[in-house]
């Protein structure tokens, strides 16, 4: 580069300083089992032998009781909105166009929520207690991932009172 060109350069006022953390995630036994069932189009949680709570995705142990969870429970594909947020900021690499709704969903029969997308409704109509159902992708697209469910969509059922969400247990 000639000196004349260098003089034309602006002073440095900013730098890019990204940090990239490279992981190799190994799913434990419980997560691997769960994802294997998701690949078959099933939602399978685990029940704590002590407090009877049902966890999905299962982690192989009950965080409250500190005991292993072995009993598998296949759950239905209907859920209740426990909480939600409307995302307005685009996330690099995410193909979904904002604004969209991300919700904590409690599947019927479970006592813990997981995050997933809500769609087929107006964002302003989403509310806590709203009833929804999983919309699965075509089985040819299923892999070891919760993305097998494209999103959850509202169903015509009465709202669940907030204090009951995730609290129901089988005897």
């Amino acid at each position, binding site marked *: 580069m000639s000196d004349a060109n260098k003089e034309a350069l602006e002073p440095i*006022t900013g*730098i890019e300083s990204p940090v990239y953390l490279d992981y190799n995630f*190994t799913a434990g036994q419980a997560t691997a*089992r769960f994802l294997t069932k998701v690949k078959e189009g099933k939602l399978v949680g*685990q029940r704590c032998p002590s407090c009877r709570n049902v966890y999905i995705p299962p982690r192989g142990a009950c965080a409250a009781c500190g005991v292993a969870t072995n009993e598998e429970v296949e759950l239905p594909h209907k859920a209740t909105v426990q909480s939600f947020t409307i995302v307005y900021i685009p996330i690099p690499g995410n193909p979904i166009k904002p604004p969209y709704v991300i919700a904590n969903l409690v599947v019927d029969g479970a006592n813990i929520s997981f995050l997933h997308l809500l769609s087929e409704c107006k964002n302003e109509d989403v509310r806590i207690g709203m009833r929804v159902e999983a919309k699965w992708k075509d089985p040819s697209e299923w892999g070891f991932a919760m993305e097998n469910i494209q999103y959850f969509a509202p169903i015509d059922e009465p709202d669940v009172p907030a204090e009951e969400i995730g609290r129901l247990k089988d005897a």
Partner: protein
Amino acid sequence: MSAQAEVLQQAFTLGFTYTRTTGLVVGRFLTALRDRKIVGIKGSDGKVIVPPMEYDPVTAEALSEFVDLPDTGVVKTWAWVKHPRGKHHLDKPFAWAQIQIDGSDIPMIHMVDAGDESKMSTGMKVKVRWAEETKGFITDIACFEPA
């Protein structure tokens, strides 16, 4: 009861794509690097600090007296890296070193490409190996090498 599932693994990268404003002092240091020059800054006690600091380490007053420095220095202490990792900037064994640039009083950390650990010693003279293309970043100093 749950049966044994196959082991599932997936590689993924979590990226924090930060951009930072440099401020005038560090910006001037980086701009000088782009021109293959090193500038430090003089503190209230007369010591020359490089990379330059915005504020005096003793009095906390803003600093502004820049000092042009050569691209040579002395190794004050060092640690040899036998097995460089993927994110290191050199793909062969090298030394991390505290290098005191000639004319400065505070060492800075950078790499020394000495080829072999036996070539490293405290007090050795080194000089900058400039990157082939400079862009206004600390890596414009590709590394130091024995002088």
